[in-house]
């Protein structure tokens, strides 16, 4: 469910728009009620006042549920190192996929969705729902292109 809070919410809306089209990957339906959702995408800065609301809605989602933390602000507090901002939602919620960027490009969010789908397919019901961590991709060839 899209927990769109600030600027990343606009990029999430752009991901749902015709050009980037999140429905290609099976996530066409963005329901705003937590009772019908599997994935919560926290997009935007979470401050202390909003943290209670986000946690409440996370608690209202039925199992199995996953969380994508979209953007720098949700993952680590981002560029706002101040008294009002929670420095990362993993201080009060478990997170499955972190997406970097401020805001992440829509292609980045789609990549995160595919990573989550890969992670879920690695989980096994028999083993108690534990999933193997996906190893990071090592670069196999020389980097091409001009240096930045």
């Amino acid at each position, binding site marked *: 469910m899209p927990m769109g809070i600030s600027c990343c919410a606009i990029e999430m809306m752009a991901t749902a728009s015709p050009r980037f089209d999140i429905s290609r990957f099976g996530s066409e339906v963005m329901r705003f009620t937590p009772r019908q959702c599997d994935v919560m995408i926290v997009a935007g800065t979470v401050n*202390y*006042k909003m*943290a*209670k609301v986000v*946690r*409440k809605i996370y608690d209202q989602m039925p199992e199995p549920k996953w969380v994508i933390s979209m953007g720098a602000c949700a993952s680590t507090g981002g560029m706002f*190192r*101040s*008294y*009002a901002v*929670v420095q990362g939602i993993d*201080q*009060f*919620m*478990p997170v499955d996929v972190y997406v970097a960027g401020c805001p992440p490009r829509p292609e980045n969010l789609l990549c995160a969705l595919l990573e989550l789908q890969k992670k879920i397919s690695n989980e096994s019901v028999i083993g108690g729902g534990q999933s193997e961590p996906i190893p990071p991709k090592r670069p196999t060839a020389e980097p091409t292109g001009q240096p930045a």
Partner: protein
Amino acid sequence: MTNAEIVDRIKAQLPESILGSEEFRNDLTILVRKDDIVRVAEFVKSDPDLLFDLVIDVCGVDLYQPEQRFEVVYNLYSLNMKRYLRLKVRVGEDNPVVPTVTSVWPGANWHERETWDMFGIKFAGHPDLRRIYMPEEFEHFPLRKDFPLMGIPDSLSLPRR
């Protein structure tokens, strides 16, 4: 009207209320006595030559000096003359109470609430003085200079993990 004419006009009507005026980069700032702010506000709003009817902003400044620590700044605009005016009021830390101007400009309501929330300056006569940004149970005033940037630990609670 030039800036000097505006100051003269207000001084002619209310001479003891004006404590000083200055001009910087073509902006006019007038320092007003704290208890007379409502009368000055009513005059600049209703006088047919001035007509400063749009309240742009009301904010507080923490000067961090021993006496007269806080300053409340009123930024006004006249749709008639198409110019800005700034009124300032100084108030001390021991009794930070300023009369409210919501009777003159109803739009100053939330601005004064924000000044209360961020600095702790009370507005006497305000219809609804509550915190606007921080949660209601927060006990400190964030924009004061002695409040640290990262906040005071345990002043805000997080839900359990």
